[in-house]
């Protein structure tokens, strides 16, 4: 670790992070009206959308009016892009010459969506990440390693700039392979890193098996920020990573079209704070669309980025599903908490044999079973009129002798936690696909055959 300077404040912006929620709400409504007017006046796409719904910016006077504004979905953005102003189409709210950054979505759910940002937007990206990294204990004493490909996906780009903004020393692990990254982290005594949970687990595996390095014992990393997949909010996955690295693991939630809208703090309250300073996040009932304000019901996450200007994100249907936590966080932030992080995506949560299932629930079971490897795959098919679900797993080589016990335990836990029976397939260790970003472990083949 770099030398400690002095005790640092607890919050990136103590004024807004501890403000009573009702005042935060007033601030959000003011900013919502501002970004709505901005988009209405500058983007044909937004103006048409709102005119068709009979909405003018002046119609929004209170928090209750926000839900009257039509939602935007990713598919709508796909339709307008690759047209003038090329390549973004008419959701662009600034002259093309003011766009300084290009990124695109990963394409996991379809054709990638382009994301233009101005320099101000890019500062805003770093600002949103600065809130989250500061809440996770990043300080100017940290040397942060980014084992990330630095490409057209936004991923950890903003984390890099936010860490710089906080004053950390940033080491870009760009084109190095996994072994070289681990050795560089060891050589430089990196204290923190950011990566997907899948990659972090894979790195630990490579360190032990190929380099004889035990990350918890031989490396200096004591905090890890995960993104890209829900793993770091799944207790059994978080536990595996924390044990492998001897580090605290923190989750964050965001998207290219939205920004980094939620984060776990050092208190690890069993959920993610919404960044209420920069985003207005609402949960909508999955069936009725009613806004959910309290705990106890899961809803679809609809988000407005309150200060993003080049291609505004107003009432974006993220397809994420979440639930509000009951208790405030002991960290003192008034920002609301998404209980257990995002529990799934509305297009992933599906009925199998009549039971509503989120793939994250299956991950929680697999990763909680001692003796199973980190990788797994879920395949849902139809056999006649009946759904059929297969779970592919690997058993750790050292645990083969316990195979029968492990599989019995797995079946019991799956039945208990998901109310479903599975065909379990054990595959040779290291044979299931390994992912660096955006793992695709859930395959629903019922429609595609």
């Amino acid at each position, binding site marked *: 670790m770099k030398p400690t300077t002095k005790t640092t*404040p*607890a*919050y990136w*912006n*103590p*004024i*807004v992070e*501890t*403000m*009573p929620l009702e*005042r*935060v709400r*007033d*601030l959000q409504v*003011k*900013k919502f009206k501002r970004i709505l007017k901005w988009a209405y006046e500058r983007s044909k796409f937004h103006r048409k959308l709102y005119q068709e719904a009979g909405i003018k910016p002046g119609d929004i006077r209170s928090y209750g009016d926000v839900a009257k504004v039509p939602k935007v979905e990713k598919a709508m953005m796909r339709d307008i892009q690759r047209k003038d102003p090329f390549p973004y189409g008419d959701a662009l709210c600034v002259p093309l010459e003011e766009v300084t950054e290009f990124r695109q979505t990963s394409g996991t759910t379809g054709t990638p969506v382009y994301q233009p940002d*101005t*320099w*101000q937007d*890019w*500062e*805003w990206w770093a*600002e949103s990440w600065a809130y989250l990294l500061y809440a996770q204990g990043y300080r100017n004493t940290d040397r942060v390693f980014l084992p990330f490909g630095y490409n057209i996906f936004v991923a950890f780009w903003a984390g890099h700039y936010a860490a710089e903004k906080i004053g950390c020393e940033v080491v870009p692990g760009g084109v190095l392979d996994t072994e070289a990254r681990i050795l560089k982290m060891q050589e430089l005594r990196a204290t923190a890193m950011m990566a997907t949970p899948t990659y972090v687990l894979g790195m630990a595996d490579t360190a032990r098996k190929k380099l004889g390095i035990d990350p918890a014992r031989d490396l200096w990393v004591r905090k890890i920020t995960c993104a890209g997949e829900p793993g770091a909010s799944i207790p059994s996955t978080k536990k595996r990573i924390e044990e492998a690295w001897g580090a605290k693991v923190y989750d964050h939630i965001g998207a290219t079209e939205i920004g980094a809208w939620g984060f776990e703090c050092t208190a690890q309250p069993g959920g993610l704070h919404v960044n209420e*300073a*920069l985003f207005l996040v609402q949960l909508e009932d999955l069936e009725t669309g009613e806004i959910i304000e309290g705990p106890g019901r899961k809803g679809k996450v609809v988000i407005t980025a309150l*200060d993003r200007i080049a291609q505004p994100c107003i009432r974006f249907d993220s397809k994420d599903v979440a639930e509000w936590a009951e208790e405030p966080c002991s*960290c*003192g*932030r*008034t920002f609301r908490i998404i209980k257990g992080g995002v529990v799934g995506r509305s297009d992933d949560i599906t009925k199998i044999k009549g039971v509503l299932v989120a793939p994250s629930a299956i991950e929680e079971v697999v990763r909680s079973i001692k003796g199973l490897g980190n990788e797994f795959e879920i395949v849902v098919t139809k056999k006649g009129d009946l759904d059929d679900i297969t779970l592919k797993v690997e058993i750790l080589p050292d645990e083969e002798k316990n195979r029968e016990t492990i599989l019995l335990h797995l079946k019991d836990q799956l039945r208990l936690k998901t109310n479903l029976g599975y065909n379990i397939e054990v595959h040779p260790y290291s044979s299931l696909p390994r992912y660096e970003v955006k793992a695709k472990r859930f395959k629903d083949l019922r429609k595609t055959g």
Partner: protein
Amino acid sequence: MGGLRRREMMTLREIKKLDTRIKAIRKASQELKELARGIPAVGCNADRILASVKMLEINITDVLPHLK
């Protein structure tokens, strides 16, 4: 501002002072940009300052009217 330790608290008056300085930086940066015609080295750096000023406004200026 519940949750803050006393020594971290800032008075409303101090926050207003911050806001006054932020407004002054915005004005100065905009003037710099206008004066910089023909000197990209000044105009483009003024643009970058203005982007950072916007972050100060998000953190302080926008929030100020919502404090007691």
